[in-house]
């Protein structure tokens, strides 16, 4: 439900700005955050993450690109990367000293999905929008890291 709301907020913000600026991928931030705070090591959560990313990407492509696949591929690649990197760290070691890794994984969620359309379609305007999106997404990433750290501290 949270992911649906985040997807809608991302969509509404994009409508509001009318394409004048790139909105951070709140949906992917929420998804990655959900995967990172899960310490159950349950396979079902990861599979849910893969297919949620796929569904969210297809819907985003249908709404804003017109050709499904661009963001879908990016979203799935990000989730696979997060699952693999996070899987290397044992659950006991995930609670502390992982701030940098969490930041990198969340940054990847903002970096890869919009990068694919730019790489495929090209154009200087696309690169400009991509860079602006990275700037706008930084506060959202920092906010996610903040609530992640708070959650980890409370868990202790």
């Amino acid at each position, binding site marked *: 439900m949270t992911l649906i709301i985040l997807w*809608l907020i991302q*969509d*509404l*913000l994009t*409508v*509001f*700005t*009318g394409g004048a600026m790139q909105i951070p991928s709140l949906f992917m931030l929420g998804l990655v955050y959900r995967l990172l705070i899960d310490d159950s090591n349950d*396979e079902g959560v*990861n*599979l849910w993450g*893969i*297919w949620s*990313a*796929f569904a969210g*990407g*297809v*819907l985003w492509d*249908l*709404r804003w690109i*017109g*050709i*499904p*696949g*661009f963001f*879908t*591929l990016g979203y*799935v*690649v990000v*989730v*696979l990367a997060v*699952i693999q990197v996070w*899987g290397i760290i044992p659950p006991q070691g995930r609670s502390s000293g992982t701030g940098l890794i969490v930041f990198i994984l969340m940054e990847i969620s903002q970096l890869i999905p919009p990068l694919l359309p730019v790489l495929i379609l090209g154009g200087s305007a696309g690169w400009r929008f991509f860079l602006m999106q990275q700037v706008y997404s930084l506060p959202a990433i920092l906010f996610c890291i903040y609530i992640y750290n708070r959650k980890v501290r409370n868990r202790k």
Partner: protein
Amino acid sequence: MDNTRNTTREWVHGLIALILGLFLLGISSGMGVMKSIVDLWGSILSIPEYPAVIMREMFIEWRSWSRDKNTLNDEVRRLRNENAKLRLDLAKFNSEKIYESSDNEIRTARVTLRAPMSWWSEIRIDRGEQDKITQGLPVFSNGYLIGRVSSVSLMSSWAELITSPSFMIPAVIEETRELGVVAGDGNGSVLLRYIPAGRGIKTGMKVSTAMIGEQVPPGLPIGQISGEFAAGVDGYTTYRIEPGADMSRFYTVSY
């Protein structure tokens, strides 16, 4: 063992999702049905997106209103400047007309009375209404302003002199463009009042009538600064003016 199986399943699911994504990317560009799906999805989303659309329109309207307001302010400023320039041009045009008419019709009048009791205040001249004398008309001697007509009768007129204490006329120091008021003191002196202190006014600077006068045209010579008379505590200085005309000795005047 379980962990390895889990990882393998995740990879399988991930790869299936990627292949599906690539498949969609490959086939959808050439499919007409995709357009219908995109349209359908767009129309479904138009319901939750409605508030954002309204807010966006409001924002655009507000921005446009703000931009229009700035444009209108700029326009008003430009028109004000233009208006001021036109006023100035009109004043210049009027004064040139006055000069032209005065150049064409410089006439002289004889001083018929200068009473000892009002020696520095007024004179009577032998020209009146029938000679086209009007109230407020400047009167000259030796090319310098000495006063203006204060009352007119059919065949004679009275002119108030610049040495009269009730005579006041806006004037300008030509070298510095400082504005002040020329007034007499009733004892033969002419003063230039209300000049802000510390403006570098020097002896010998020329004084003439200013454009802000109502009846007297600008640029009529009055005399020159002959020294400081008094420095007021209010930040203004009064200067003494040496009239260009000999105020003690004139038998005829021009107008």
